[in-house]
């Protein structure tokens, strides 16, 4: 009982610190540096403490300090309540969806079963979709309550885009669920112990569709018309400054991490190293005794998981800096006329194959 409690607290603290404390600031740095290296330049690396600039890793701290000291204004005539609450509605789903993503398997440590996921829900993946839909409210409220034509246009586009891609995203996942036969992310992860049972081999089309829908849901380029910098100044968060602006930004980055986590879990073997099973890991670490072996195996798996997540973060950042952005009606056409039919065909074909 106490052990369960400690375990939960430990996991929550770990995920929070990794997400908010590590990934959110680091992703800002990664975005700047990666885009810079892709574009033949050095990124931001001037912020220093005491003369030491470690390749610009102090920039997130500088950003945080700058943002906290900015004036927080609400435009005249704007709806104060919604204007204030919209960033929170956007941020909370981005953090909370990571609760069901498993970052490691089951281990036996000190006689206690440790399951490396914060909440092993039976509905698994549906929880993620449910929360992602809530983020739509945040965007629409931000756009509408700012009392500015530009924000309104941004919020309008965002609402249509996010709703459509929710639907499509749900359908693309059905293939994977059929193949693995469960909604629980931990079971899907555990079922990928064999390298050739990884989701990417069983559902390649589903992977591409899901990644597209998830990037669209996250409003990143090429789907970033709600916040299109060149058309709408800054879209739905034009009238925000200071901490609230950063909350929108953080929500976007954290959702990148969440999407990478889900893609890794569903399609790329979750926490498994290719061709290495848990039993092999435990026997590899025999020298440390059963508990030590379990802890070491746990660390290896967690590291693998986060390595894969990092790769997908890199991929999403690369896509952002490569492609131009779509036009609003092209995004809608892409969703309803291309992704939806293909995902339905995917479901049929998968169903046939599973049946036979």
């Amino acid at each position, binding site marked *: 009982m106490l052990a369960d409690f400690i375990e939960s607290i430990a996991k929550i603290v770990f995920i929070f610190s990794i997400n908010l404390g590590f990934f959110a600031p680091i992703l800002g740095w990664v975005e700047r540096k990666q885009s*810079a*290296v892709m*574009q*033949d330049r050095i990124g931001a690396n001037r912020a220093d403490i005491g003369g030491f600039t470690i390749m610009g890793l102090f920039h997130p701290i500088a950003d945080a300090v700058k943002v906290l000291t900015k004036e927080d204004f609400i435009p005249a005539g704007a709806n104060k309540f919604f204007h204030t609450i919209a960033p929170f509605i956007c941020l909370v789903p981005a953090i909370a969806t990571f609760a069901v993503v498993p970052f490691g398997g089951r281990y036996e440590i000190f006689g206690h079963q440790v399951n490396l996921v914060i909440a092993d829900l039976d509905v698994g993946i549906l929880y993620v979709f449910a929360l992602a839909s809530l983020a739509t409210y945040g965007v629409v409220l931000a756009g509408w309550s700012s009392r500015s034509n530009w924000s309104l246009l941004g919020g309008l586009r965002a609402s249509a885009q996010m709703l459509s891609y929710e639907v499509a995203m749900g359908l693309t996942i059905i293939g994977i669920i059929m193949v693995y036969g469960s909604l629980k992310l931990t079971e899907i992860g555990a079922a990928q112990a064999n390298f050739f049972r990884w989701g990417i081999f069983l559902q390649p089309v589903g992977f591409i569709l899901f990644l597209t829908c998830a990037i669209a849901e996250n409003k990143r380029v090429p789907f970033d018309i709600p916040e299109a910098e060149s058309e709408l100044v800054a879209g739905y968060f034009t009238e925000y400054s200071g901490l609230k602006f950063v909350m929108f930004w953080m929500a976007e980055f954290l959702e990148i991490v969440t999407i990478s986590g889900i893609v890794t879990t569903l399609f790329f073997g979750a926490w498994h190293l290719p061709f290495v099973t848990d039993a092999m890991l435990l026997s590899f670490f025999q020298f440390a005794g059963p508990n030590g072996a379990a802890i070491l195996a746990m660390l290896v798996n967690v590291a693998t998981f986060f390595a894969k997540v990092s790769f997908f973060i890199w991929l999403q950042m*690369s896509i952002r800096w490569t492609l131009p952005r779509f036009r609003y009606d092209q995004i809608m056409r892409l969703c309803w006329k291309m992704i939806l039919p293909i995902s339905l065909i995917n479901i049929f074909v998968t169903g046939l194959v599973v049946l036979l």
Partner: protein
Amino acid sequence: MNTMTDRNPTPSFPNVGVPLEKLKPKRVRRRIELTLWEKLYVFEVLRGLYVTSRHFAANMIGFVVPPKGKKRSVFTVYYPEERVTLPPAYRGRPVLVARQDGSEKCVACGLCEKMCPAHAISIVPAERADGDRYPSSYILDMSRCVYCGYCEEVCPKEAIVMSAEYEGLAETDRGNMLYPKEKLLRSEESVKGRIQYIKRIYSKCNY
């Protein structure tokens, strides 16, 4: 593989009065019929990712193993620790040339004042006891100067040259932007390179 143009111009151009063989029109290939693979965005994304990843990899390797002659393979010059090497033709801020004894070579002829397109120079001429003209007051308004180089070009005495200085020109007070003679003077050695350059480009052999 030239995706841009297609070498069979259809002969139906509007007549603009120039014969076709002199005009040499070349149709751009706008009917890029995308193959099915290209219509699926995936392959385009992959091709774009290939281009940018190639730059990414080249630059990352270039940070560790820089190409010969340069410090790193990215294009950036890391100012202010590194400076760009300026060509000899570079026009920085104007300076007055001082002789050995510290006085200016300028004879206050007023050509630079008349030529300046921004009317930045004001000269008050005066004469010394032995008849030499000199500017008793020479004020160059740096907030008006556009660094065009006309003053250097028309000066008959090579008394004002465009040095290679481009830093330290910002002031917080507009009054400080009126540079008097003392602030403009530089010794002849320090601008020797520039004087040799202008002697060369404006000398007889180039005309």
